[in-house]
């Protein structure tokens, strides 16, 4: 499995995205994938980061508005609520395995 680049983004303060980064690191470890290269940013910075990086996955903890991209997006709100977290972890694992 090759090392993936993952954009993890949240509203402004980098808190919920920090929680998500830790969860994604655990997923990668669990499936034996290399720890992804993380780009942690605000929602407003996603477009710029997509333009300047080859990105494999976007995990926003909230709704990412006005972004049109072919890069898969897996919502990470479940990392805060705990509701449906396993399904989100599975989807992320699938993307990291590609």
């Amino acid at each position, binding site marked *: 499995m090759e090392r993936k680049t993952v954009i993890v983004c949240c509203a402004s303060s980098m808190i919920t995205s920090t929680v998500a980064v830790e969860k994604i690191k655990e997923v990668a470890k669990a499936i034996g994938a290399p720890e992804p290269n993380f780009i942690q940013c605000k929602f407003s910075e996603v477009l710029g980061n997509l333009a300047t990086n080859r990105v494999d996955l976007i995990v926003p903890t909230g709704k990412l508005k006005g972004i049109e991209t072919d890069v898969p997006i897996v919502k990470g709100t479940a990392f805060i*609520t705990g*509701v449906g977290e396993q399904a989100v972890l599975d989807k992320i694992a699938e993307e990291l395995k590609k």
Partner: protein
Amino acid sequence: MFSVSPEDVLLGLKATSQEEVVHLLCEHLAAQKDIVPGYEESLLEREENYPTGLVLGEVCAAIPHTDPQYARTTKLVVAALANPVAWKNMEDPDEQVEVSVVVLSLFDKPEKQLEALQKIMGIIQDQSALKKVLNASNVDEVVRIFN
């Protein structure tokens, strides 16, 4: 770790909207001189764009917070609402969730935010804890759940 003071637990808070809850919590914080002018506007604006209503199960919660420059201290304020109010959903601001418990986190330093969120997550991911907060008959019961 973060603890909750009995005076920061508001039981049976009566409000009919998300904005009114925010306003009442800001009045509470202002009375204790915990915030500076601009906090309420900042919080409302953030909730408008990046809401914090969370779908959790039978009892849902909102976790309002904003940038640290308007805060004079670091604390959590817990409100159990008399009746649920419609709150914008973090997952999709165009949707709403009926919120009965509100946990506001106030911080004067950004590095304290992660710890605050982790504390809050421990409670909100536990429906039985949320129900205890909602149905508490006195503030000490809520303080015990958080501390």
